[in-house]
């Protein structure tokens, strides 16, 4: 695995400083909290995506997982549908149901890629359509309301001075850090991304590694969905449907190689932070919607080009 410093960290700093200079209201305590608050769900989903991309795969179904798990959680927790009387129990069961659902969808993706040898792009694109459609079919396109107060208040509840969404994000980051840096699975993930054939010969359980990363991506998408569902107070079959570009953009801008085997958790953190900061600062600057879309598109495309260019440079120099 590579640990060389990445340009995104410097870009982040430069952009942050520039935004602080020219964007009114950007460099304030309120906006810093707001930025972190907006960042957390995206970051959680993006680190799951990073694991998949590290194995040279891609998970395009994450937004559909967010939608399905939002609906499943909504049905379990909503006072209109829940079979459980106690709201605390409903919240616990709801979150558990969401995480299990995310894990199961990830398992299906992982088995399709690892065992059936189907291209990750096709599997997860189909998953995006199937599970996205499934969420709409399940709810007949209706949102689910009347979620328990404990859940909808969660984003505004603090523990030791930090709001719970930030604790959730830190917990997920900590776990993924341990997986990547302190476990055999982490070593396998990088090895599979560099070369699955030599990894298999070297004793790496390639299939299990691939299945695990898709499951972890499903689980992180589900955890992100918990935060989205809580803050919108709604279980929605279209939750997160426009988020895919941001999620993949965060990983790519973070410098994780689209060809696998190269990338660090802190790079993705910086990438996700950059995406959140971009939205926030352009929004505060009062730019029109169209300009924001153009700027974001150019930045993500440039990052992808740098990514590919970096890979080619490595190949040429070898």
């Amino acid at each position: 695995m590579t640990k060389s410093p990445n340009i995104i960290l410097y870009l982040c700093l430069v952009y942050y400083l520039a935004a602080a200079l020219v964007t009114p209201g950007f460099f304030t305590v309120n906006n810093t909290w707001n930025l972190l608050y907006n960042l957390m769900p995206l970051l959680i989903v993006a680190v799951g995506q990073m694991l998949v991309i590290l194995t040279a795969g891609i998970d395009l179904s994450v937004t559909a997982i967010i939608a399905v798990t939002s609906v499943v959680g909504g049905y379990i927790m909503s006072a209109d549908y829940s079979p459980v009387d106690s709201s605390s129990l409903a919240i616990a069961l709801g979150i558990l149901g969401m995480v299990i659902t995310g894990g199961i969808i990830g398992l299906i993706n992982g088995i399709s890629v690892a065992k059936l040898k189907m291209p990750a792009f096709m599997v997860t694109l189909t998953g995006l359509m199937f599970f996205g459609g499934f969420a709409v079919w399940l709810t007949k396109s209706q949102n689910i309301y009347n979620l328990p107060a404990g859940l909808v208040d969660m984003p505004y509840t603090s523990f030791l001075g930090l709001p719970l969404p930030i604790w959730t994000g830190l917990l997920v980051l900590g776990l993924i850090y341990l997986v990547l840096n302190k476990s055999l699975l982490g070593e396998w993930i990088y090895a599979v991304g560099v070369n699955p054939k030599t990894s298999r010969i070297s004793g790496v359980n390639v299939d299990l590694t691939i299945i695990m990363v898709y499951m972890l991506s499903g689980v992180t998408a589900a955890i992100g969905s918990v935060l989205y569902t809580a803050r919108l107070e709604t279980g929605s079959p279209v939750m997160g449907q426009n988020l895919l570009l941001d999620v993949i953009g965060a990983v790519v801008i973070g410098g994780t190689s689209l060809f696998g085997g190269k990338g660090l958790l802190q790079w993705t953190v910086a990438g996700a932070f950059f995406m959140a900061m971009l939205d926030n600062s352009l929004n505060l600057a009062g730019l029109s919607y169209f300009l924001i879309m153009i700027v974001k598109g150019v930045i993500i495309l440039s990052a992808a080009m740098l990514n590919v260019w970096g890979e080619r440079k490595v190949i040429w120099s070898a």
Partner: protein
Amino acid sequence: MLFRYYWSLLVIVGCLTAGCAAKEEGTVIGISFETLQTEYWVASIEAMKSVCEENGVGYLEAVANGDANRQFEQVNNFISRGVDGIVIAPKDAHTVIPIIKAANRAGIPIAIYNRLPAENEGDYITVVADNYEISRNTVEYMAEVARESGKKHKAMILIGDLGDINAVNRRRGFDDALAAHKDLIEVVAEVPTEWNQEKALAGVTNALQVNPDIDFIFSSSDFLFPSVVSALKNADKYHPIGHPDHVILGGFDGDAMAYRMLREKYLDADGVQDVFFECQESVLAVIRKMREEQVPDLIVDPGFVIHQQNLEQKAESMWGASF
């Protein structure tokens, strides 16, 4: 090394920003739209910006591209920026509630434009068209046209997203208007569109195949007219008023296409929301609230029906005519 430079720069920037923040920026309103997908929303945001400019108020704009979550983040950005008021055209009646709560927590006045929020205890002003009454009057006019033709009719309605209270009220208006004309008009098709033109085209095409004798169509929004017209042309049923096979057409909104269709005598009637009134009231309500003046919680736009008989008199008030 780099981090040492970074922290030094950060301190300098902090001082500069603090200096900038100390300057009086004037009153700023945050305008948040869930989408600019239709002419109606584009006309609305432009009208609001004009009202802000006329009143010497600055504005920030944000469009969420149909994503309630993004809209929530954008309004939070407004709040952290410290805007003085917020006007929002929300995604739907329920996802606006956490946004109202956020504005209330920050003590910032908020006006909800064009969509009535679901029941909640928040402090907000709603500016909304009387969707039920305008639809009912539009369909009532269409039914009179049908009665004058002296023959029986088969009707179709294009329904919007039923999570949107406006779509629900427009459908109620349609149903109630036709309840008095059951002897003459039979509703044979209800096409769910979820405010999506592709779904509308597929739905209308299918309905015309199953019921080729449909000759009375009400679209819950004018922005679905391209789909309706395309399907009617494919079925060779798109003819102007006066043609023996003319399909009685009605819509809701008052956009440029509806105006053109009225002029070209393809459209019989259109329910018009008064965009200028609604936008002006939304911005002014927030400004009045900022000045702690009394503002009603609900401001209703009565709208009007434009049809072939009053086209010349009413065209000036139809926003699509000047779009």
